[in-house]
């Protein structure tokens, strides 16, 4: 780049450019910046190396395909699921469950969290209960959910709801609590009523954090998918994995797991991007 080299020339004025000499040792200095190019490519290199090792191990016949099929076999499995339409069907069923489960959790957890964060009475009444319930393992609740909600979609959605709601309510409460008390005081001195302060000051101030909570919790909902589809499901990404276990179809298991991870990642990315454009004022890039 001509511009940076001219800067370098001006700054150096005949001295040796020390950047090259330092660069290798400089990558491992505590909390020091490293070149963007190195930082970004490091994130690609690690998975690529892992896949290469995986490929080498399988190609050399060090492990049986039953335990670890080759990366190519996974791609073939992906192709099979795409062309037969299985993948689309599974994914749409699962995404529907995730959306309904997470949305119902969010629609309840956000208002409840806001009430708990603002009114000590609600916090005192609900916090002990929610804190206890959230440590109950969701898998252990499967029998109860079947009793209560049958074996249809409702049961899967209920599991996803239970896995998400309690954590989310507590997180939203914290999001609301961390806003500066002086914002509320400023609203009071400007003559706004409690309801106005709640809607026009507390809510907008806490919204970026609540959005972030949404992003984190929908990630958790994704991780509960397999648990939700453990029992009496005909289709779904989690169901596909559990079925494959019965036939020892290791390629299906691995592909299914990676695909759920990928969808989770995409959801996360979508939330991040939307949040960034919704809340430009926070200054987060």
């Amino acid at each position, binding site marked *: 780049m001509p511009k940076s080299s001219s800067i370098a020339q001006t700054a150096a004025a005949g001295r040796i450019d020390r950047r090259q000499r330092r660069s290798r040792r400089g990558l491992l200095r505590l909390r020091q910046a490293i070149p963007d190019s190195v930082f970004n490519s490091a994130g690609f290199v690690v998975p690529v190396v892992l896949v290469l090792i995986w490929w080498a191990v399988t190609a050399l016949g060090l492990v049986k395909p039953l335990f670890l099929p080759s990366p190519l076999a996974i791609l073939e499995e992906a192709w099979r699921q795409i062309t037969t339409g299985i993948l689309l069907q599974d994914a749409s069923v699962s995404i529907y469950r995730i959306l309904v489960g997470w949305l119902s959790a969010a629609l309840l957890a956000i208002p409840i969290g806001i009430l708990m964060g603002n009114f000590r009475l609600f916090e005192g009444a609900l916090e002990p209960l929610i804190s206890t319930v959230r440590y109950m393992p969701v898998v252990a609740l499967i029998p109860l959910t079947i009793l209560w909600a049958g074996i249809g979609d409702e049961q899967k959605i209920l599991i996803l709801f239970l896995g998400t709601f309690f954590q989310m309510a507590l997180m939203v409460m914290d999001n609301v609590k961390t806003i500066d008390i002086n914002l509320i005081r*400023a609203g009071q001195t400007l003559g706004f009523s409690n309801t106005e302060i709640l809607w026009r000051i507390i809510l907008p101030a806490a919204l970026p954090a609540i959005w972030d909570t949404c992003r984190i919790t929908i990630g958790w909902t994704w991780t509960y998918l397999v648990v939700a589809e453990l029992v009496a499901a005909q289709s779904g990404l989690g169901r596909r994995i559990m079925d494959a276990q019965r036939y020892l179809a290791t390629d299906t298991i691995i592909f299914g797991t990676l695909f759920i991870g990928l969808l989770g990642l995409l959801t996360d990315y979508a939330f991040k991007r939307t949040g960034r454009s919704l809340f430009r004022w926070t200054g987060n890039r």
Partner: protein
Amino acid sequence: MNPASTPKIVVDAVGKIFGEGDDEFLAINRIDLSVAPNEFVSIVGTSGCGKSTLLNMVGGLTEPTFGDVLIDGKPVTGPGRDRGFVFQGYSLFEWMTVEGNILFALEKSRMGKAEKADLVRQFIAEVGLAGFEKAYPRQLSGGMRQRVAIARALVYKPSLLLMDEPFGALDAQTRGMMQELLLKVWEDHKVTVLFVTHDVEEAIFLADRVVVLASRPGRLKRELKIELERPRRYDIVTSPEFSAYKRDILADIREETLKVMALDRG
């Protein structure tokens, strides 16, 4: 009583207890204070002497346990638009622009849109932020943010301005500029100011009167009339009169600090 001699603020035997049961503690014990209209009063004291609590009680944000606070002869029952408040830190509405923050303060004012816009423009200019109307608080420096906060607290024309260590987070140079700006605004608008700070020099430089609070429980230790001529220039702090005031107040504060340290040890 003729109206000119009616005090703007009367703090009448005010006390404050925080907590309950075993955690009960007396934060303020019987403070009496009277502030005249258009007077600039600084309150100083060691940390924990209850100076912010006192300010919050005048602002109606905290209720006194004993006694009364009167503004224009009427007891304070809560926050109100006759008072403007400037807090120490980041109390701007981050999701609103500079303009939006100040306009928000006018929402409860009965006036036309154009009139409001004019007022907003006028106050932005007064605090030296012309050109930053559309900026978000996050994009501003600490000093600029407090300029917005001052404009927001004054734009609806309260007769009393309450300031709680408003310049505490600023660097020394910026703080000096902000003090001069505040004096200019105060002289232009003729409001009564109650200014809490732990910076003795700042207290003297700004005020007509400095109130020193004693600690644990907070109570009045000394009231000192500052008879330095106005308008005050930044270099007044090097004058002998200024130094004399400063010496007196520092001695008081040191005495209080030593007392508190002894309490902590025992």
